């Protein structure tokens, strides 16, 4: 039986620790969307939604939904004090203009150069859809990708070169998976942390490009110290 990897919730929990106090943040579809629930209590961050919300709060409680106040995933949400509404073009002045401190997106593939593919599986039926991910990827001051380390068929999602249609090139700063935290650096991928119970060598076997790591790689933290 394979060893237990982190759950999607645990990936989100780990990713939440990357949020600096006072940051303006955009969270994408998938695992990133779970992160808001794990923001450490001593940290305040402001959530941006590309449909025109800053200071977005938690999902609306059942029965209290306002369908004019939805996030980028069509989910009814709330607005926190100090939040604001604006148009979609102004929302993307924020994404593309480099105003968001940190953005976290899901990924289908990330290359060792920090290229991201996250919008379309090759050969998929239908037209596909880009949404706001391309604007967010190029503009974020810091871009994190959270995803499972390998695809359902076991193949690595961290690759030398993306074979899937690209979202943006040279954009990812850090990858957080169910096996590791990996920084994309000019010298290549640096393994910063490994999931509890895994060795750097094991993580390397699930990763196509070569990882750089020191002799002692710490375990992935799940809570703020």
């Amino acid at each position, binding site marked *: 039986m394979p060893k237990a990897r982190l759950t999607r919730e645990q990936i989100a929990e780990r990713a939440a620790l990357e949020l600096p106090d006072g940051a303006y943040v955009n969270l994408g579809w998938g695992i990133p969307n779970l992160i808001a629930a794990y923001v450490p209590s001593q940290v305040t961050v402001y959530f941006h*939604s*590309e*449909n*025109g*919300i800053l200071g977005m709060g938690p999902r609306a409680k059942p029965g209290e939904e*306002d*369908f*004019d*106040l*939805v*996030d*980028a*995933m*069509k989910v009814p949400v709330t*607005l926190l004090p100090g939040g604001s*509404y*604006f*148009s*979609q*073009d102004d*929302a*993307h002045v924020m*994404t*593309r203009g480099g105003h968001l401190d940190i953005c976290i997106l899901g990924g289908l593939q990330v290359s060792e150069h920090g*290229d991201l593919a996250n919008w379309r599986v090759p050969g998929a*039926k*239908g*037209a*596909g*859809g*880009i*949404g*706001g*991910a*391309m*604007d967010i990827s*190029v*503009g974020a001051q810091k871009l994190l990708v959270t995803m499972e380390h390998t695809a359902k068929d076991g193949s690595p999602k961290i690759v030398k070169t993306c074979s899937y*249609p*690209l*979202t*943006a*090139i*040279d954009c990812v700063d850090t990858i957080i998976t169910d096996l590791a935290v990996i920084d994309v650096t000019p010298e290549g991928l640096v393994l910063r942390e490994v999931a509890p119970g895994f060795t750097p060598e094991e993580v390397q076997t699930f990763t196509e490009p070569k990882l750089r790591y020191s002799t002692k790689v710490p375990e992935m933290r799940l809570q703020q110290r």
Partner: protein
Amino acid sequence: MTSKEKVYPTIDAAVADIPDGATIMFGGFGGAGFPNNLIQGLARQGARNLGVISNNCGTGEGELGLLFKNRQISRVIAAFPGPGAKYFQEQFDAGEIELELVPQGILCERMRAFGAGIPAFFSPVGVGTEIGRGKEERMIRGKRYILEQALGADYAFIRAYRADRMGNLVYRKAARNFNPIMATAAKSTIVEVEEVVATGKLDPETIVTPSIFVDRIVQAEGKRYA
């Protein structure tokens, strides 16, 4: 004192003259801020061979879905047609619809450029991806960019919360989305609103779309969501 009357008596009157082949922008995102009454009016009116500029392509028969179901649309520019856009997807897979996929922020920016008299601009979005393919590329101050073109339309169909009779608009929460920018980028902007108020009733500090961008105003028929 006279002045051009912008308030139309009915949804049907507001869309009566849309010709076959027109290109129309539709506001709305995530279920909020769609001009559903205008869309339904256009379905009744029956114009065909339409070009659509919209973030997405409806959900089932909802929102723009109705116009796809009626086969009124032949060309689409969109950021995220959407998995729930059943009729669009069927016709797209059958090769019956021409589609240009555009990153969401660039869709906005191309419309803003049109409204602002800017014919083209360099953009960092889509560089090195299929979005950049075939587009002029240039290094500017050490970074790669592609050239994007302004995007206008014959009509913008938008939804606002309140209008005064002169055409000033305010929106409600995240139902604002694409509506204000589309209002600037079309030859004629038609807005459906929850309420038409007397001129002077909106606080001039809070007006989001000034009247200059609005050509026709019509009271929504009560249906906010499709």
